[in-house]
């Protein structure tokens, strides 16, 4: 089978991607509460949330972070990723049930690592909603294999 993954050497600084959109549903939030164990009122108590500035339940910040990780794999051919190194992330605005989010990403740094078979790719990532408002933004460091 052809190896369609992109290796460290082939990924260039300045590359930009935009993902398809994805509508965040009530089911997504309920499933994520079950998976993570995060049943905080922000995400699960509709009546309590009516009295807050949000007016309704909001998606978990980490749910949207996880969704964008999936959207990234639909935005570009897969990287030969060995793992995540780290991330620096800001949650800027709430995502509500029915909002549609998409990811915009750009390669901003490439560097070698101690092990010669891999390098680190840093991406700027922005999650936008259907009104083009920035809901989350940050940088992720990916450890990517070099072409063998």
């Amino acid at each position: 089978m052809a190896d369609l993954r992109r290796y460290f050497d082939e990924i260039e600084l300045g590359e930009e991607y935009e993902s398809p959109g994805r509508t965040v549903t009530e089911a997504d939030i309920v499933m994520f509460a079950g998976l993570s164990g995060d049943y905080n009122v922000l995400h699960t108590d509709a009546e309590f949330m009516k009295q807050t500035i949000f007016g309704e339940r909001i998606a978990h910040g980490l749910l949207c972070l996880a969704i964008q990780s999936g959207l990234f794999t639909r935005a570009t051919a897969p990287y030969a990723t060995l793992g995540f190194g780290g991330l620096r992330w800001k949650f800027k605005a709430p995502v509500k049930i029915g909002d549609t989010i998409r990811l915009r990403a750009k390669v901003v740094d490439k560097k070698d690592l101690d092990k010669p078979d891999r390098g680190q790719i840093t991406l700027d990532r922005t999650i936008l909603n259907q009104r083009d408002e920035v809901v989350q933004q940050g940088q992720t460091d990916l450890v990517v294999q070099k072409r063998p």
Partner: protein
Amino acid sequence: MTAATYFEDVVVDKVQLTPAITVTAAHVEMYEGLTREMGSGGIPDVLPLCMAIGLGWRVKAPPMAVQAFVGLDWKIMKELRVGDTMHTRSRIVSKRPLRDGGLVVDERTILDQHGEVVQQGKFTFLVAKRQKEASA
């Protein structure tokens, strides 16, 4: 109103340990179904982070009155495998009052069953201040 730890009651340097949870293939499948992230065979690195947040609510102390998750600075040190059992340690690093509520920086460490650090970083939360007593 349920008991909560408000901004005024947050103690800097306080350390809390959570219960542990075994990460199973079912967690990985649910995560991949939810995110549509393509499977690599192992545990996606963001999954333990998501589960760490849930464990944080299971400590005995009243939960922080979190109004919003503001930011995250996170490092992945070690790969977790299906069948590993993780728990977390939390330490309040700093607190800074704002007009409404205040910012609390909480250092979280995910450890495996051998006590080795798997992931670590800092969460910044916006935490509510105690409601003023209603005047009669």
